């Protein structure tokens, strides 16, 4: 119970009226408060929400007379009319028939069944009728009005209900308003202009950046502060940069249509310098023992990783010392499910320098995870075609109670760097961002990020 309550004047009027007259209908409240029906409706609703008013809804039957009922009200029930005719003495059956017409049959049947008349040869005479016939009391009581069914004698009514068009029964809904116990004693302040500052208010929706974008921005920020600079690259890439330059042989399963999106009938015009092409193809021929085909390298694909962007950058600039990263969408020809998308975001970073080592690479990862709030991590060996040694980070998720795989990392193979003229060791790491965002927003269906479901976008907490 609230300590103090501020009431609207409508509420005050309703409460006051109900204190005088504890059980009322909305109609009676209209009369007593002189408020409009709509004001009464709103006031009752407010009070009900505050648990100050109790609204009991009930249904009741109302009885009025039908066509035949009204006729009987005027002329008397058919059996009364028969008895009236016999009042003056016995009558011939045929005369009665003529006099009463089609009501003769039913009225005669009823009168005989009840022993109100007596028949000898064709003479009908009155016997022993009651002064008030069954149904007459009800007929008189209802008259031309509508009357609640429960105010009538049920036995007396029942006979009439069986007769066609005698009785009309309507169901009406009614509300009864009363005060709750707490409302009976509550103080009604007289201060004018106060509002209920504790009342519920409508929800408004905040315009905001997309939750996934927030995670992307957060990750970008972390790497910038770790000394990395952001580079951009295209999503549509030649197979040369997406695969060949990364030492992925042309017959490697990852290059098949069922894993990679190839653009229909689109080939790159220029894929690299003649020297790059020659050296990359030689490395493939020597190490993978097959006929390298430039046409295969020209096929345009939607990048399967952002590594193609970083390797292209290194091949172009050949820095001795650098920290760069690229961040963007990558594509895989997968069946979309709660854990797989055809298109997702990846971050990819590289460190090049004379003292770049595997332990440094692990240190950068550890620092990154620490900054996104993950401290329980470990490293496992793994395999990527273009790095050696290769590791993956496993992070412990408290909510799921298990280790999950996040970023992969490694040192670019000499078979990758040498043909492109990169002489210093290159540490590389990368991984999907949606997985991190899923942990952050506690989602178990990755598709939610791209559904643009306003219900979710409007409710996801901005700062997690």
């Amino acid at each position: 119970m609230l300590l103090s309550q501020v009431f609207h004047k409508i509420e005050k009027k309703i409460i006051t009226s109900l204190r005088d007259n504890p059980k009322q209908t909305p109609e009676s409240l209209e009369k007593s408060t002189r408020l409009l029906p709509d004001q009464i409706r709103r006031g009752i609703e407010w009070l009900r929400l505050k648990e100050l008013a109790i609204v009991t809804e009930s249904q009741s039957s109302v009885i009025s007379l039908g066509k035949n009922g009204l006729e009987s009200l005027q002329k008397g029930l058919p059996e009364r009319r028969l008895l009236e005719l016999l009042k003056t003495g016995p009558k011939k059956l045929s005369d009665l028939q003529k006099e009463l017409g089609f009501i003769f049959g039913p009225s005669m049947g009823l009168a005989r069944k009840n022993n109100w008349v007596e028949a000898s040869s064709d003479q009908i005479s009155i016997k022993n009728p009651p002064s008030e016939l069954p149904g007459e009391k009800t007929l008189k009581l209802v008259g031309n009005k509508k009357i609640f069914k429960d105010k009538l004698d049920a036995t007396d009514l029942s006979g009439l209900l069986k007769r066609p068009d005698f009785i009309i029964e309507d169901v009406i809904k009614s509300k009864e308003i009363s005060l709750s116990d707490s409302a009976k004693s509550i103080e009604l302040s007289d201060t004018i202009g106060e509002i209920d500052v504790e009342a519920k208010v409508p929800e408004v929706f905040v315009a905001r950046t997309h939750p996934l974008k927030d995670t992307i921005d957060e990750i970008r920020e972390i790497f910038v502060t770790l000394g990395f600079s952001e580079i951009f690259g295209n999503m549509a890439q030649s197979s040369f940069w997406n695969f060949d330059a990364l030492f992925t042989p042309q017959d490697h399963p990852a290059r098949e249509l069922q894993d990679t999106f190839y653009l229909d009938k689109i080939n790159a015009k220029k894929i690299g310098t003649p020297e790059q092409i020659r050296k990359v193809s030689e490395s493939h021929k020597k190490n993978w023992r097959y006929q390298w085909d430039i046409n295969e390298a020209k096929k345009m694909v939607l990048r399967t990783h952002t590594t193609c962007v970083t390797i292209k950058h290194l091949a172009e600039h050949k820095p001795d010392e650098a920290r760069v990263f690229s961040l963007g969408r990558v594509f895989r020809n997968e069946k979309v499910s709660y854990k797989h998308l055809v298109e997702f975001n990846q971050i990819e970073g590289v460190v090049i320098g004379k003292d770049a080592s595997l332990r440094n690479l692990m240190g950068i990862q550890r620092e990154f995870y620490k900054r996104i709030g993950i401290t329980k991590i470990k490293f496992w060996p793994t395999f990527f075609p273009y790095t050696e040694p290769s590791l993956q980070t496993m992070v412990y998720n408290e909510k799921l109670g298990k280790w999950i795989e996040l970023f992969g990392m490694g040192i670019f193979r000499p078979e990758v760097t040498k043909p492109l003229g990169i002489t210093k060791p290159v540490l590389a790491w990368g991984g999907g961002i949606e997985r991190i965002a899923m942990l952050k927003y506690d989602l178990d269906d990755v598709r939610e990020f791209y559904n643009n479901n306003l219900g979710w976008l409007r409710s996801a907490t901005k700062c997690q």
Partner: protein
Amino acid sequence: MPVVELSYTRLQKLVGKVSKKQISDSLPFLGLDIESEDKDLVRIEYSPNRPDYSTDFGIALGLQGLLGIKTGTVKLNIKKSNKFPIFVKSGVSKMRPFVTGIVAKNGKIDDKTIKQLMTMQEDLHFGIGRKRKKSSIGIHDLDKISFPLVYTTTNRNHKFTPLNSEQEIPISEILVNTDVGKDYGSLLGQSPHVPIIFDKNQNTVSFPPIINAAITTVTTKTKNLFVEITGINKDDAEDMLAVVATILQTAGFTLESVKISGMKNSTPKLEQKKISVSSSLINQILGLNLNAAKIISSLKKSRLDASSKGTNIVCTIPAYRFDIFGSMDLVEEVALGYGIQNLEPTLSPSQTIGKTNPVSLQLKSLDQTMIGLGFLEALNSSLTSKRVLYDMVNRDSSKIISVLDSKSQEHTILRDSILPGLIENLSRNIHESYPQKMFETGTVFTFEDPISEKINCSGISAHKDANFTEIKSMIQSALKIGFGIQIETKTTTNPTFEEGHCASIIFNNMSIGIIGKINSKIIENYKIRVPVVGFEISLFESILKNQN
């Protein structure tokens, strides 16, 4: 990644003196991911570069090394023999020129061993065999074969009883009626002749790379095996043989050589190779300071042999480790033998100053401006469908950029516009309260040398009073306040928009986008019950003008 199913108790027997926990704790440090466990059974993922891990025999070798039970290389002991010759005829030179093989004797084959060998064969076929194209294996019961064998060609009418069949079937029918025939028949091309291995009595032993003959089927009663591998490259076939031979020897067989001659074929040597690597490279890359002895013991734990020679480490690599190309691979082997868990991460101070890309900064400013105007940010895929991008919004679809063989119907073409996706998003939110205002910034694709990628921004507003004036004021203010860009609008027509409520957005006398009220028929088709207004602008021609 390929998966192999193992039994812990079987592994314990193979490795020797280890607990189940020691095994499950060590597997990840061999690069093997435990996918699932069920009591004694464990399913693990292994890397395709380590086909020796396709059986529990191979994994046991790795575990023995890592746990220090047995270290150093596994030497193949192959008894030289003249009893098993294979002659190669000229016909195969143009289709599948090489055959190699080995004999493995006196082994015990139980059901579980057969299952492991079958998985190995399948994984080798799929991985390094490139779906049997590069090389393929046949494993036979040696005692059902009379040597010498001949590797030659036959015509497609030739009949024999293939594996899992009881009657003779012509090759042409095998190719059409069996699963393997349908899957791999295309590797044989259109030639009327196909490769075949006959024994001394002209009985068919194998029809590579499709199927073996039924008569040589390996069962639990088989004692002695004959393995043949055919392929298009001799070295690749011998690599595969090295894996099979190593596994069979580990499984308890004794190996004998198969003598191969004819058409540039020869008996396989399966020799170890030597690669030398400098200690300083190892220490530099790993960030450690290990002495030669520690490096050598680490390599031995990775089942390699090594000795020091000056400042170099000379490493001996068995034939089945053809994943080792050069010195960096050896650095990794040192790391694995040393134990990844023993590498302590370090953070060396950055020598560089980080910088956000200016494009990212501009886009972030745009996001903030749009949000200030009450727009909620949406994200859609760049890969979308013809229905959403063109059909539903009456756009001309003659310049579609599509991808091949997408597994998802909703993701088959690259978007050249962002607005259609946002309109579709509204249709999924008709039960949510209005006004609904959304915007999205993202890459759009068009044909140009061969593909041009630009960044567009689109916004929409849907509510009962949405109108042209509202959306124009918003984009006008966003560009003016956010970027000092003054735009104008010029009447135009566009099938996505309502006629008379549509304009080009003009900046510096150039059209940079479109704005207007979305065609009511489109809104109706999407079952949206309020009017919708929207815009789309090209950012490289406006706010990113100086960035590209």
